[in-house]
Protein backbone atom coordinates (compact mmCIF):
# COMPACT_ATOMS: atom_id res chain seq x y z
CA UNK A 1 0.00 0.00 0.00
CA UNK A 2 1.42 3.35 -1.00
CA UNK A 3 1.89 5.76 1.81
CA UNK A 4 0.75 9.35 1.48
CA UNK A 5 3.33 10.50 3.91
CA UNK A 6 6.82 11.43 2.85
CA UNK A 7 9.56 10.70 5.28
CA UNK A 8 12.52 13.03 5.59
CA UNK A 9 15.79 11.77 4.22
CA UNK A 10 18.04 10.04 6.68
CA UNK A 11 20.62 12.76 6.09
CA UNK A 12 18.19 15.47 7.07
CA UNK A 13 17.48 13.79 10.37
CA UNK A 14 21.15 13.47 11.14
CA UNK A 15 21.68 17.11 10.36
CA UNK A 16 18.95 18.12 12.83
CA UNK A 17 20.28 15.91 15.58
CA UNK A 18 23.80 17.31 15.43
CA UNK A 19 24.41 20.12 17.85
CA UNK A 20 26.09 23.26 16.53
CA UNK A 21 29.78 23.36 17.36
CA UNK A 22 30.54 25.14 20.59
CA UNK A 23 32.87 28.10 20.26
CA UNK A 24 36.41 27.13 21.26
CA UNK A 25 37.20 27.34 24.96
CA UNK A 26 33.72 28.33 25.96
CA UNK A 27 31.94 25.62 27.88
CA UNK A 28 30.16 27.73 30.44
CA UNK A 29 26.51 28.10 29.59
CA UNK A 30 24.16 30.94 30.08
CA UNK A 31 21.29 30.50 32.51
CA UNK A 32 18.01 30.26 30.71
CA UNK A 33 14.61 31.16 32.00
CA UNK A 34 11.76 28.79 31.16
CA UNK A 35 8.11 29.19 31.97
CA UNK A 36 6.27 25.92 32.44
CA UNK A 37 2.52 26.32 32.34
CA UNK A 38 -0.04 27.70 33.07
CA UNK A 39 -1.38 25.27 30.50
CA UNK A 40 1.30 22.63 30.33
CA UNK A 41 -0.05 19.06 30.31
CA UNK A 42 1.91 18.13 33.42
CA UNK A 43 0.82 21.12 35.50
CA UNK A 44 -2.64 19.54 35.91
CA UNK A 45 -4.69 22.68 35.75
CA UNK A 46 -3.39 26.20 35.74
CA UNK A 47 -0.09 26.25 37.58
CA UNK A 48 2.87 28.11 36.17
CA UNK A 49 6.43 27.42 37.25
CA UNK A 50 8.92 30.10 36.39
CA UNK A 51 12.21 28.22 36.21
CA UNK A 52 15.79 29.20 35.76
CA UNK A 53 17.81 26.51 34.03
CA UNK A 54 21.49 25.77 33.76
CA UNK A 55 21.51 23.44 30.80
CA UNK A 56 18.81 20.98 31.75
CA UNK A 57 19.21 21.41 35.50
CA UNK A 58 16.77 23.59 37.39
CA UNK A 59 18.57 26.20 39.47
CA UNK A 60 15.53 28.15 40.62
CA UNK A 61 11.82 27.40 40.52
CA UNK A 62 9.15 29.91 41.38
CA UNK A 63 5.60 28.57 41.20
CA UNK A 64 3.02 31.15 40.17
CA UNK A 65 -0.41 30.29 41.52
CA UNK A 66 -3.72 32.12 41.60
CA UNK A 67 -5.01 31.58 38.08
CA UNK A 68 -8.03 29.78 39.49
CA UNK A 69 -8.69 32.18 42.36
CA UNK A 70 -12.43 32.67 42.76
CA UNK A 71 -12.58 34.33 46.14
CA UNK A 72 -14.31 31.43 47.89
CA UNK A 73 -13.53 32.83 51.32
CA UNK A 74 -15.15 36.17 50.45
CA UNK A 75 -18.13 34.37 48.95
CA UNK A 76 -18.51 32.30 52.13
CA UNK A 77 -18.83 35.44 54.25
CA UNK A 78 -21.84 36.43 52.19
CA UNK A 79 -23.98 33.33 52.34
CA UNK A 80 -25.36 30.82 54.80
CA UNK A 81 -23.47 27.66 55.73
CA UNK A 82 -25.69 25.42 53.63
CA UNK A 83 -25.43 27.71 50.62
CA UNK A 84 -21.67 27.28 50.72
CA UNK A 85 -21.81 23.49 50.28
CA UNK A 86 -21.72 23.63 46.44
CA UNK A 87 -18.63 25.83 46.63
CA UNK A 88 -16.83 23.15 48.64
CA UNK A 89 -17.37 20.78 45.70
CA UNK A 90 -15.14 23.03 43.70
CA UNK A 91 -12.19 23.04 46.09
CA UNK A 92 -10.68 19.62 45.45
CA UNK A 93 -13.01 18.91 42.57
CA UNK A 94 -11.70 15.37 42.31
CA UNK A 95 -13.12 14.45 45.70
CA UNK A 96 -16.14 16.69 46.30
CA UNK A 97 -17.77 14.28 48.74
CA UNK A 98 -14.78 14.49 51.07
CA UNK A 99 -14.84 18.31 50.92
CA UNK A 100 -18.58 18.35 51.67
CA UNK A 101 -17.96 16.24 54.74
CA UNK A 102 -15.05 18.35 56.01
CA UNK A 103 -17.12 21.53 55.74
CA UNK A 104 -20.17 19.98 57.39
CA UNK A 105 -18.15 18.61 60.32
CA UNK A 106 -16.38 21.93 60.85
CA UNK A 107 -19.71 23.76 61.11
CA UNK A 108 -21.18 21.04 63.31
CA UNK A 109 -18.21 21.41 65.68
CA UNK A 110 -19.24 25.05 65.96
CA UNK A 111 -22.70 24.03 67.11
CA UNK A 112 -21.33 21.09 69.15
CA UNK A 113 -23.76 18.95 67.20
CA UNK A 114 -23.32 15.20 66.87
CA UNK A 115 -24.84 13.53 63.86
CA UNK A 116 -26.36 10.03 64.24
CA UNK A 117 -24.24 6.92 63.49
CA UNK A 118 -25.96 6.23 60.18
CA UNK A 119 -25.07 9.70 58.92
CA UNK A 120 -21.47 9.24 60.07
CA UNK A 121 -21.30 5.92 58.24
CA UNK A 122 -22.69 7.37 55.03
CA UNK A 123 -20.14 10.16 55.20
CA UNK A 124 -17.26 7.76 55.81
CA UNK A 125 -18.28 5.53 52.91
CA UNK A 126 -18.65 8.45 50.51
CA UNK A 127 -15.40 10.07 51.67
CA UNK A 128 -13.46 6.85 51.15
CA UNK A 129 -15.05 6.36 47.74
CA UNK A 130 -13.98 9.90 46.93
CA UNK A 131 -10.47 9.04 48.09
CA UNK A 132 -10.31 6.03 45.77
CA UNK A 133 -11.64 8.14 42.92
CA UNK A 134 -9.12 10.94 43.56
CA UNK A 135 -6.16 8.58 43.92
CA UNK A 136 -7.17 6.76 40.74
CA UNK A 137 -7.09 10.02 38.85
CA UNK A 138 -3.83 11.04 40.50
CA UNK A 139 -2.27 7.72 39.56
CA UNK A 140 -3.53 7.79 36.00
CA UNK A 141 -2.33 11.34 35.45
CA UNK A 142 1.02 10.55 37.09
CA UNK A 143 1.36 7.60 34.69
CA UNK A 144 0.74 9.84 31.69
CA UNK A 145 3.27 12.37 32.98
CA UNK A 146 6.01 9.77 33.00
CA UNK A 147 4.93 8.05 29.79
CA UNK A 148 2.66 5.22 30.92
CA UNK A 149 -0.64 5.81 29.14
CA UNK A 150 -2.25 2.47 29.85
CA UNK A 151 -2.73 3.09 33.56
CA UNK A 152 -4.93 6.07 32.85
CA UNK A 153 -7.34 3.99 30.78
CA UNK A 154 -7.67 1.39 33.52
CA UNK A 155 -8.15 3.93 36.31
CA UNK A 156 -10.76 5.89 34.39
CA UNK A 157 -12.72 2.74 33.81
CA UNK A 158 -12.94 2.28 37.59
CA UNK A 159 -13.71 5.93 38.22
CA UNK A 160 -16.65 5.64 35.87
CA UNK A 161 -18.10 2.90 38.05
CA UNK A 162 -17.66 5.13 41.10
CA UNK A 163 -19.31 8.02 39.31
CA UNK A 164 -22.34 5.86 38.60
CA UNK A 165 -22.61 5.14 42.32
CA UNK A 166 -22.17 8.84 43.17
CA UNK A 167 -24.87 9.73 40.70
CA UNK A 168 -27.25 7.23 42.18
CA UNK A 169 -26.65 8.60 45.67
CA UNK A 170 -26.40 12.33 45.10
CA UNK A 171 -27.93 12.95 41.69
CA UNK A 172 -24.66 14.33 40.35
CA UNK A 173 -21.55 12.65 39.08
CA UNK A 174 -19.08 15.41 39.76
CA UNK A 175 -20.33 18.28 41.91
CA UNK A 176 -22.18 16.30 44.49
CA UNK A 177 -23.14 18.89 47.19
CA UNK A 178 -24.29 15.98 49.28
CA UNK A 179 -23.98 17.12 52.88
CA UNK A 180 -26.16 19.51 54.81
CA UNK A 181 -25.21 20.98 58.16
CA UNK A 182 -26.45 18.33 60.59
CA UNK A 183 -26.83 15.52 58.08
CA UNK A 184 -26.82 14.65 54.43
CA UNK A 185 -29.14 15.66 51.62
CA UNK A 186 -30.94 12.29 51.47
CA UNK A 187 -30.68 8.76 52.75
CA UNK A 188 -28.90 6.11 50.68
CA UNK A 189 -31.13 4.50 48.02
CA UNK A 190 -32.36 0.94 48.40
CA UNK A 191 -29.58 -1.56 47.71
CA UNK A 192 -26.92 1.08 47.19
CA UNK A 193 -24.57 -0.19 49.90
CA UNK A 194 -24.74 -3.64 48.28
CA UNK A 195 -23.66 -2.17 44.97
CA UNK A 196 -20.79 -0.31 46.67
CA UNK A 197 -19.76 -3.58 48.28
CA UNK A 198 -19.86 -5.32 44.90
CA UNK A 199 -17.77 -2.53 43.42
CA UNK A 200 -15.15 -3.02 46.15
CA UNK A 201 -14.99 -6.77 45.51
CA UNK A 202 -14.38 -6.41 41.80
CA UNK A 203 -12.12 -3.39 42.30
CA UNK A 204 -9.43 -5.09 44.40
CA UNK A 205 -8.11 -7.43 41.67
CA UNK A 206 -8.22 -4.61 39.14
CA UNK A 207 -6.31 -2.36 41.54
CA UNK A 208 -3.59 -5.03 41.76
CA UNK A 209 -3.50 -5.13 37.98
CA UNK A 210 -3.19 -1.32 37.79
CA UNK A 211 -0.44 -1.20 40.39
CA UNK A 212 1.40 -4.08 38.69
CA UNK A 213 1.62 -1.93 35.60
CA UNK A 214 3.76 0.57 37.51
CA UNK A 215 5.30 -0.86 40.66
CA UNK A 216 8.08 -2.90 38.99
CA UNK A 217 7.97 -1.05 35.70
CA UNK A 218 11.58 -0.24 34.71
CA UNK A 219 10.73 3.03 32.97
CA UNK A 220 8.45 4.17 35.78
CA UNK A 221 11.05 3.37 38.41
CA UNK A 222 13.79 5.13 36.47
CA UNK A 223 11.66 8.25 36.38
CA UNK A 224 10.60 8.19 40.03
CA UNK A 225 13.03 6.35 42.33
CA UNK A 226 15.32 8.84 44.12
CA UNK A 227 13.69 11.69 42.21
CA UNK A 228 12.19 14.63 44.08
CA UNK A 229 13.26 13.48 47.52
CA UNK A 230 11.53 15.42 50.31
CA UNK A 231 13.13 14.75 53.66
CA UNK A 232 11.08 14.19 56.80
CA UNK A 233 12.22 17.54 58.19
CA UNK A 234 11.37 19.43 55.01
CA UNK A 235 7.98 17.79 54.74
CA UNK A 236 7.07 18.96 58.23
CA UNK A 237 8.67 22.40 57.86
CA UNK A 238 6.73 23.12 54.70
CA UNK A 239 3.44 21.95 56.19
CA UNK A 240 2.94 19.02 53.82
CA UNK A 241 0.05 16.75 54.72
CA UNK A 242 -1.63 13.64 53.41
CA UNK A 243 0.14 11.10 51.20
CA UNK A 244 2.96 13.56 50.50
CA UNK A 245 3.82 13.82 54.21
CA UNK A 246 3.41 10.07 54.74
CA UNK A 247 5.58 9.41 51.70
CA UNK A 248 8.35 11.15 53.61
CA UNK A 249 7.92 8.77 56.53
CA UNK A 250 5.70 10.74 58.91
CA UNK A 251 2.78 8.58 60.01
CA UNK A 252 0.29 11.41 60.48
CA UNK A 253 -3.19 10.45 59.42
CA UNK A 254 -5.96 12.53 60.95
CA UNK A 255 -8.43 9.68 60.52
CA UNK A 256 -6.25 7.70 62.91
CA UNK A 257 -4.79 10.40 65.15
CA UNK A 258 -7.83 12.64 65.56
CA UNK A 259 -10.73 10.43 64.52
CA UNK A 260 -13.87 12.16 63.32
CA UNK A 261 -17.15 10.83 61.93
CA UNK A 262 -16.59 7.47 63.63
CA UNK A 263 -13.28 6.57 61.98
CA UNK A 264 -12.15 5.10 65.30
CA UNK A 265 -14.43 2.09 64.72
CA UNK A 266 -12.61 0.93 61.62
CA UNK A 267 -9.42 -1.01 61.30
CA UNK A 268 -7.00 0.26 58.73
CA UNK A 269 -3.28 0.76 58.30
CA UNK A 270 -1.46 3.99 57.59
CA UNK A 271 1.17 3.39 54.90
CA UNK A 272 4.36 5.46 55.10
CA UNK A 273 7.32 5.82 52.75
CA UNK A 274 10.97 5.42 53.65
CA UNK A 275 12.81 7.82 51.36
CA UNK A 276 10.29 10.50 50.45
CA UNK A 277 10.89 10.27 46.70
CA UNK A 278 8.27 10.27 43.95
CA UNK A 279 8.15 6.48 44.02
CA UNK A 280 7.33 6.40 47.74
CA UNK A 281 4.48 8.84 47.26
CA UNK A 282 3.14 6.59 44.52
CA UNK A 283 3.39 3.50 46.76
CA UNK A 284 1.60 5.28 49.61
CA UNK A 285 -1.33 6.23 47.36
CA UNK A 286 -1.59 2.71 46.00
CA UNK A 287 -1.77 1.24 49.47
CA UNK A 288 -4.21 3.89 50.66
CA UNK A 289 -6.72 2.71 48.08
CA UNK A 290 -6.53 -0.83 49.48
CA UNK A 291 -7.08 0.59 52.98
CA UNK A 292 -10.02 2.67 51.77
CA UNK A 293 -11.64 -0.48 50.41
CA UNK A 294 -11.09 -2.07 53.83
CA UNK A 295 -12.81 0.86 55.54
CA UNK A 296 -15.74 0.87 53.13
CA UNK A 297 -16.30 -2.86 53.56
CA UNK A 298 -16.27 -2.56 57.36
CA UNK A 299 -18.61 0.42 57.26
CA UNK A 300 -21.05 -1.43 55.05
CA UNK A 301 -20.87 -4.58 57.19
CA UNK A 302 -22.04 -2.65 60.25
CA UNK A 303 -24.11 -0.01 58.48
CA UNK A 304 -26.42 1.26 61.22
CA UNK A 305 -30.13 1.86 60.96
CA UNK A 306 -31.81 4.92 62.37
CA UNK A 307 -32.05 8.55 61.38
CA UNK A 308 -29.59 9.94 58.83
CA UNK A 309 -29.69 13.52 60.09
CA UNK A 310 -29.67 15.20 63.48
CA UNK A 311 -33.40 15.05 64.25
CA UNK A 312 -33.19 17.20 67.36
CA UNK A 313 -31.36 20.10 65.69
CA UNK A 314 -34.48 22.06 64.87
CA UNK A 315 -32.67 25.29 64.06
CA UNK A 316 -30.01 23.62 61.92
CA UNK A 317 -31.42 20.82 59.79
CA UNK A 318 -34.60 21.33 57.81
CA UNK A 319 -37.32 18.70 58.46
CA UNK A 320 -38.48 16.16 55.84
CA UNK A 321 -40.55 17.58 53.00
CA UNK A 322 -43.77 15.70 53.77
CA UNK A 323 -43.81 17.17 57.27
CA UNK A 324 -43.08 20.68 55.94
CA UNK A 325 -46.13 20.43 53.71
CA UNK A 326 -48.47 19.15 56.41
CA UNK A 327 -47.42 20.78 59.67
CA UNK A 328 -47.28 24.46 60.56
CA UNK A 329 -44.38 24.19 62.98
CA UNK A 330 -42.17 22.35 60.49
CA UNK A 331 -43.09 24.82 57.76
CA UNK A 332 -41.85 27.69 59.91
CA UNK A 333 -38.76 25.72 60.88
CA UNK A 334 -37.93 25.07 57.23
CA UNK A 335 -38.60 28.71 56.29
CA UNK A 336 -36.26 29.98 58.99
CA UNK A 337 -33.44 27.61 58.04
CA UNK A 338 -33.73 28.41 54.34
CA UNK A 339 -33.87 32.18 54.77
CA UNK A 340 -31.60 32.73 57.76
CA UNK A 341 -29.41 29.67 57.51
CA UNK A 342 -28.62 27.08 60.17
CA UNK A 343 -28.26 28.95 63.44
CA UNK A 344 -24.81 28.80 65.00
CA UNK A 345 -23.49 30.13 68.28
CA UNK A 346 -20.67 32.67 68.30
CA UNK A 347 -17.16 31.27 68.52
CA UNK A 348 -14.20 29.92 66.62
CA UNK A 349 -13.39 26.42 65.41
CA UNK A 350 -10.66 24.91 63.30
CA UNK A 351 -11.26 21.49 61.85
CA UNK A 352 -9.04 19.51 59.52
CA UNK A 353 -10.17 16.40 57.70
CA UNK A 354 -7.85 13.87 56.10
CA UNK A 355 -8.75 14.42 52.47
CA UNK A 356 -7.19 12.61 49.50
CA UNK A 357 -4.72 15.46 48.94
CA UNK A 358 -3.98 16.11 52.61
CA UNK A 359 -5.51 17.95 55.52
CA UNK A 360 -8.35 20.17 54.33
CA UNK A 361 -8.92 22.69 57.10
CA UNK A 362 -11.80 25.03 57.80
CA UNK A 363 -11.30 27.86 60.28
CA UNK A 364 -14.67 29.41 61.01
CA UNK A 365 -15.29 32.54 63.03
CA UNK A 366 -18.94 32.88 63.85
CA UNK A 367 -20.68 35.82 65.46
CA UNK A 368 -23.90 33.89 65.70
CA UNK A 369 -26.55 33.43 63.05
CA UNK A 370 -26.49 31.57 59.79
CA UNK A 371 -23.57 33.30 58.08
CA UNK A 372 -19.89 32.99 59.04
CA UNK A 373 -17.95 36.15 59.87
CA UNK A 374 -14.85 34.59 58.39
CA UNK A 375 -14.41 31.19 56.78
CA UNK A 376 -10.83 30.30 56.05
CA UNK A 377 -10.05 27.30 53.86
CA UNK A 378 -6.71 25.64 54.35
CA UNK A 379 -6.15 23.92 51.02
CA UNK A 380 -3.69 21.05 51.32
CA UNK A 381 -2.53 21.49 47.72
CA UNK A 382 -1.55 25.08 48.50
CA UNK A 383 0.82 23.91 51.23
CA UNK A 384 2.01 20.90 49.23
CA UNK A 385 2.96 23.11 46.30
CA UNK A 386 4.89 25.55 48.48
CA UNK A 387 7.67 22.94 48.73
CA UNK A 388 8.33 23.14 44.96
CA UNK A 389 11.02 25.88 45.11
CA UNK A 390 12.93 23.61 47.47
CA UNK A 391 12.45 20.23 45.82
CA UNK A 392 12.83 21.29 42.17
CA UNK A 393 16.26 22.86 42.58
CA UNK A 394 18.90 20.50 41.22
CA UNK A 395 16.36 18.36 39.40
CA UNK A 396 16.20 17.97 35.63
CA UNK A 397 13.31 19.49 33.73
CA UNK A 398 11.92 16.03 33.10
CA UNK A 399 12.12 15.33 36.86
CA UNK A 400 9.94 18.36 37.51
CA UNK A 401 7.22 16.57 35.55
CA UNK A 402 7.62 13.53 37.80
CA UNK A 403 7.60 15.66 40.94
CA UNK A 404 4.44 17.49 39.91
CA UNK A 405 2.72 14.20 39.11
CA UNK A 406 3.75 12.67 42.43
CA UNK A 407 2.65 15.66 44.52
CA UNK A 408 -0.85 15.13 43.11
CA UNK A 409 -2.20 18.62 43.62
CA UNK A 410 -5.40 20.20 42.41
CA UNK A 411 -5.52 23.88 41.64
CA UNK A 412 -9.15 24.42 42.60
CA UNK A 413 -8.16 23.92 46.20
CA UNK A 414 -4.82 25.68 45.94
CA UNK A 415 -6.24 28.92 44.54
CA UNK A 416 -9.69 28.78 46.13
Amino acid at each position, binding site marked *: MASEYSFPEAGARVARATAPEAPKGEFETEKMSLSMGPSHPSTHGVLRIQMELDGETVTRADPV*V*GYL*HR*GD*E*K*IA*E*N*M*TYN*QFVPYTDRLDYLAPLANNMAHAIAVE*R*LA*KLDVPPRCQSIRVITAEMARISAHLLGLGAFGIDVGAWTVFLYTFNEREKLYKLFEELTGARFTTSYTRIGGVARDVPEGWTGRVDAFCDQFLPILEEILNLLTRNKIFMDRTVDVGVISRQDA*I*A*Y*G*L*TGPNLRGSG*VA*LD*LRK*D*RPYSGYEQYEFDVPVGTKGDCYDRYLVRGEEMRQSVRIIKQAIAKFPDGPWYATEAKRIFAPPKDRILTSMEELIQNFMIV*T*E*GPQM*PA*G*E*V*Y*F*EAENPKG*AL*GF*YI*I*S*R*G*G*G*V*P*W*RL*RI*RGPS*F*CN*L*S*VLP*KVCVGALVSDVVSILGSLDFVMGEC*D*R
Partner: protein
Amino acid sequence: MSAPADTLAVLKARFPRVAERASLDHPALDVPTTDLFAVLRALRDDHDFDLLSDLTAFDAGVDVSPRFHVVYHLLAIRRAAYVRVVVACESNDSPEVPSAVPLWPGANWHEREAFDMFGVRFAGHPDLRRILMWDEYPHFPLRKEFPLAGIDAPLPDAEVAAESGSRAAPAPMAGGPFVATPVDFNLTESEPRAKDESWTEKKEKPD
Protein backbone atom coordinates in the same frame (compact mmCIF):
# COMPACT_ATOMS: atom_id res chain seq x y z
CA MET B 1 -8.49 16.11 72.43
CA SER B 2 -6.33 19.00 73.58
CA ALA B 3 -2.75 19.85 74.32
CA PRO B 4 -1.66 19.07 77.86
CA ALA B 5 -3.03 21.72 80.14
CA ASP B 6 0.45 22.72 81.21
CA THR B 7 1.36 24.05 77.74
CA LEU B 8 -0.83 27.07 78.32
CA ALA B 9 0.21 27.41 81.96
CA VAL B 10 3.92 27.21 81.16
CA LEU B 11 3.61 29.75 78.38
CA LYS B 12 1.57 32.12 80.51
CA ALA B 13 4.18 31.92 83.26
CA ARG B 14 6.98 32.59 80.81
CA PHE B 15 5.24 35.36 78.85
CA PRO B 16 3.09 37.35 81.28
CA ARG B 17 1.34 39.25 78.49
CA VAL B 18 0.01 36.09 76.88
CA ALA B 19 -3.66 35.47 77.64
CA GLU B 20 -5.94 32.54 77.10
CA ARG B 21 -8.41 33.07 74.26
CA ALA B 22 -12.00 31.88 74.11
CA SER B 23 -12.31 28.90 71.81
CA LEU B 24 -14.86 26.19 71.07
CA ASP B 25 -12.32 23.48 70.37
CA HIS B 26 -8.54 23.79 70.63
CA PRO B 27 -6.55 25.62 73.32
CA ALA B 28 -6.04 29.18 72.13
CA LEU B 29 -3.76 32.05 73.05
CA ASP B 30 -3.86 35.80 72.57
CA VAL B 31 -0.30 36.96 72.06
CA PRO B 32 1.03 40.53 71.76
CA THR B 33 3.07 41.31 68.62
CA THR B 34 6.30 41.73 70.58
CA ASP B 35 6.11 38.24 72.09
CA LEU B 36 4.80 36.49 68.98
CA PHE B 37 8.04 35.15 67.58
CA ALA B 38 9.30 33.93 70.94
CA VAL B 39 5.97 32.24 71.71
CA LEU B 40 5.90 30.49 68.35
CA ARG B 41 9.48 29.34 68.81
CA ALA B 42 8.71 28.07 72.31
CA LEU B 43 5.68 26.18 71.01
CA ARG B 44 7.75 24.62 68.24
CA ASP B 45 10.85 23.76 70.23
CA ASP B 46 9.60 23.09 73.76
CA HIS B 47 6.04 21.92 73.25
CA ASP B 48 6.26 19.66 70.14
CA PHE B 49 4.10 21.89 67.92
CA ASP B 50 6.23 21.15 64.90
CA LEU B 51 3.80 21.56 61.99
CA LEU B 52 2.44 24.96 61.02
CA SER B 53 -0.91 23.78 59.81
CA ASP B 54 -2.44 27.08 58.89
CA LEU B 55 -1.67 30.76 59.01
CA THR B 56 -4.30 33.31 58.15
CA ALA B 57 -5.71 36.66 59.10
CA PHE B 58 -9.12 38.08 59.79
CA ASP B 59 -10.71 41.50 59.85
CA ALA B 60 -12.63 42.15 63.06
CA GLY B 61 -14.69 44.90 61.42
CA VAL B 62 -14.17 48.30 59.84
CA ASP B 63 -14.86 50.24 63.06
CA VAL B 64 -13.15 47.85 65.45
CA SER B 65 -9.71 48.37 66.90
CA PRO B 66 -7.47 46.41 66.79
CA ARG B 67 -8.88 45.54 63.43
CA PHE B 68 -6.56 42.96 61.87
CA HIS B 69 -5.61 39.72 63.55
CA VAL B 70 -3.26 37.01 62.38
CA VAL B 71 -4.10 33.44 63.36
CA TYR B 72 -1.70 30.49 63.57
CA HIS B 73 -2.82 26.89 63.90
CA LEU B 74 -0.02 24.60 65.01
CA LEU B 75 -0.19 20.83 65.12
CA ALA B 76 1.91 18.64 67.39
CA ILE B 77 2.35 15.56 65.23
CA ARG B 78 3.47 13.33 68.10
CA ARG B 79 0.29 13.74 70.13
CA ALA B 80 -1.97 15.04 67.35
CA ALA B 81 -3.00 18.18 69.23
CA TYR B 82 -3.65 21.65 67.88
CA VAL B 83 -3.08 25.04 69.38
CA ARG B 84 -4.34 28.36 68.07
CA VAL B 85 -2.26 31.51 68.42
CA VAL B 86 -3.90 34.84 67.67
CA VAL B 87 -2.04 38.11 67.42
CA ALA B 88 -3.76 41.47 67.03
CA CYS B 89 -1.96 43.94 64.77
CA GLU B 90 -1.25 47.14 66.65
CA SER B 91 -1.80 49.48 63.75
CA ASN B 92 -5.05 49.51 61.79
CA ASP B 93 -3.59 51.55 58.91
CA SER B 94 -0.40 49.58 58.33
CA PRO B 95 -0.83 46.27 60.16
CA GLU B 96 2.41 44.41 60.67
CA VAL B 97 3.57 41.33 62.57
CA PRO B 98 6.90 39.48 62.57
CA SER B 99 7.26 36.78 59.95
CA ALA B 100 7.23 33.10 60.91
CA VAL B 101 9.29 32.06 57.88
CA PRO B 102 12.50 31.59 59.94
CA LEU B 103 10.62 28.98 61.99
CA TRP B 104 8.61 27.33 59.24
CA PRO B 105 9.51 27.88 55.58
CA GLY B 106 5.95 26.79 54.84
CA ALA B 107 4.75 30.08 56.34
CA ASN B 108 6.09 31.83 53.25
CA TRP B 109 3.06 31.30 51.03
CA HIS B 110 0.55 31.68 53.86
CA GLU B 111 1.98 35.07 54.76
CA ARG B 112 1.98 36.14 51.14
CA GLU B 113 -1.70 35.20 51.01
CA ALA B 114 -2.53 37.09 54.20
CA PHE B 115 -0.73 40.11 52.76
CA ASP B 116 -2.55 39.69 49.45
CA MET B 117 -6.01 39.43 51.00
CA PHE B 118 -5.75 41.75 54.04
CA GLY B 119 -2.69 43.92 53.50
CA VAL B 120 -1.04 42.65 56.67
CA ARG B 121 2.74 43.01 56.33
CA PHE B 122 5.13 40.45 57.76
CA ALA B 123 8.42 41.96 58.96
CA GLY B 124 11.34 39.84 57.87
CA HIS B 125 9.50 37.94 55.14
CA PRO B 126 12.00 37.14 52.37
CA ASP B 127 9.70 37.85 49.44
CA LEU B 128 6.44 39.53 50.40
CA ARG B 129 4.51 39.70 47.12
CA ARG B 130 0.90 39.04 46.26
CA ILE B 131 0.24 35.39 45.54
CA LEU B 132 -3.34 34.84 44.39
CA MET B 133 -4.06 38.27 42.88
CA TRP B 134 -1.65 39.80 40.39
CA ASP B 135 1.20 41.98 41.60
CA GLU B 136 -0.26 45.34 40.54
CA TYR B 137 -3.71 44.69 42.04
CA PRO B 138 -4.57 47.74 44.17
CA HIS B 139 -7.09 46.32 46.70
CA PHE B 140 -7.21 43.87 49.60
CA PRO B 141 -10.25 41.73 48.80
CA LEU B 142 -10.95 40.07 52.16
CA ARG B 143 -11.13 43.34 54.08
CA LYS B 144 -14.67 43.94 55.23
CA GLU B 145 -15.10 47.20 53.30
CA PHE B 146 -14.34 45.44 50.01
CA PRO B 147 -17.68 44.69 48.30
CA LEU B 148 -18.55 41.17 47.20
CA ALA B 149 -18.99 42.34 43.61
CA GLY B 150 -15.44 43.65 43.43
CA ILE B 151 -14.00 47.05 42.52
CA ASP B 152 -12.78 48.38 39.18
CA ALA B 153 -9.13 47.57 38.61
CA PRO B 154 -6.89 47.72 35.57
CA LEU B 155 -6.08 44.38 33.98
CA PRO B 156 -2.71 42.90 34.88
CA ASP B 157 -1.37 43.31 31.35
CA ALA B 158 -1.55 46.92 30.14
CA GLU B 159 -1.03 45.84 26.53
CA VAL B 160 -3.98 43.45 26.61
CA ALA B 161 -6.10 46.08 28.36
CA ALA B 162 -5.31 48.68 25.68
CA GLU B 163 -5.94 46.21 22.86
CA SER B 164 -9.21 44.82 24.21
CA GLY B 165 -10.47 47.90 26.03
CA SER B 166 -11.58 45.70 28.93
CA ARG B 167 -11.09 46.07 32.66
CA ALA B 168 -11.45 43.86 35.71
CA ALA B 169 -14.95 45.17 36.33
CA PRO B 170 -17.20 44.35 39.28
CA ALA B 171 -19.41 41.35 38.79
CA PRO B 172 -23.06 41.95 37.94
CA MET B 173 -24.85 40.82 41.07
CA ALA B 174 -28.32 40.57 39.48
CA GLY B 175 -30.04 41.56 42.69
CA GLY B 176 -27.87 39.46 45.03
CA PRO B 177 -26.36 38.60 47.37
CA PHE B 178 -29.38 36.83 48.82
CA VAL B 179 -28.10 36.43 52.31
CA ALA B 180 -28.83 37.35 55.86
CA THR B 181 -26.46 39.63 57.70
CA PRO B 182 -24.36 37.70 60.21
CA VAL B 183 -25.72 39.59 63.22
CA ASP B 184 -28.92 41.47 64.05
CA PHE B 185 -30.85 39.76 61.34
CA ASN B 186 -33.59 41.91 60.00
CA LEU B 187 -35.31 41.76 56.65
CA THR B 188 -34.81 45.44 55.75
CA GLU B 189 -31.07 44.96 55.92
CA SER B 190 -30.86 41.56 54.40
CA GLU B 191 -33.22 42.39 51.57
CA PRO B 192 -30.75 42.64 48.69
CA ARG B 193 -32.52 45.44 46.86
CA ALA B 194 -31.99 47.70 49.85
CA LYS B 195 -28.25 47.15 49.63
CA ASP B 196 -25.61 49.01 47.73
CA GLU B 197 -25.16 46.07 45.34
CA SER B 198 -28.65 46.56 43.93
CA TRP B 199 -27.37 47.60 40.50
CA THR B 200 -27.51 45.13 37.63
CA GLU B 201 -26.29 44.92 34.04
CA LYS B 202 -29.01 47.33 32.98
CA LYS B 203 -28.92 49.69 35.93
CA GLU B 204 -25.76 51.70 36.49
CA LYS B 205 -23.82 51.24 39.70
CA PRO B 206 -24.39 54.22 42.03
CA ASP B 207 -21.21 56.13 42.92
